């Protein structure tokens, strides 16, 4: 898929999987969001798994980018699942008062994809 940014977006069945392994800052973050939306449009994907296993820290800026990406995907009809958040990242975000309650989460990529399959089987988008 043609992309502006350099964060890979893979097609897995009827869903998309993107793995964030670099710092999401300003221009990169914007390009990432736009790439994801274009990929959803092009593939007709109903689900998106964002894998952040590789992120050693997530500040409130990056957390907002991730939550916003999920909201944007939802507007296009795709359901987002954020997976792989490390224990220390989860603890830090909550201690800062950040409630990422708009995005569904799962432990890892397999769980995230399985949850999207289960949604599909239930006939939800």
């Amino acid at each position, binding site marked *: 898929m043609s992309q502006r940014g350099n964060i890979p977006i893979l097609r897995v069945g009827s869903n998309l999987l993107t793995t964030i392994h670099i710092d999401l800052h300003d221009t990169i973050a914007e390009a990432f969001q736009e790439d994801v939306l274009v990929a959803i449009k092009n593939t007709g994907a109903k689900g998106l798994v964002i894998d952040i296993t590789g992120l050693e820290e997530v500040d409130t800026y990056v957390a907002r980018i991730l939550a916003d990406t999920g909201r944007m995907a939802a507007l296009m009809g795709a359901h987002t699942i954020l997976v792989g958040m490390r224990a220390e990242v989860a603890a*830090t975000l909550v201690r800062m008062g950040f409630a990422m309650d708009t995005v569904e989460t799962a432990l890892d990529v397999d769980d995230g994809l399985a949850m999207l399959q289960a949604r599909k089987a239930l006939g939800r988008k």
Partner: protein
Amino acid sequence: MADVVQRWEMPIRTEDDVILVRRKARMLAQERGFDAFATAALTTAASELGRNALVHGGGGGALIEHLADGTRSGIRITFVDRGPGIADMARVLAGGYSTARSLGLGLSGTRRLVEEFDIESAPGAGTKVVICKWTRY
């Protein structure tokens, strides 16, 4: 009293500079035996404050210091900028207030991540924030 074992001065002029400050803090924390939770707390705080110095303060610098008090290691980071300063400090520290397109949890949240947090700012005179975190034993 804590001694300063080593110190590094780093500029904050670009987004990449913010990342470098954070990486330096991470490396030092790991070397000094901070666990994963303490390391994430310190580096996330550094990320928030470095970003503030750049975005709200128009750039400045960070001073990273490795401290020792006999039994424990500490990491102190001072962020300085010559930007507009913060007029309504109480409001900003309460959290949820932002003049930018963001969440306003940076300063209030950072405060909860570190053992020492000190902020000085006067309108027009820039902002200085000092944080410090210690190993547990």
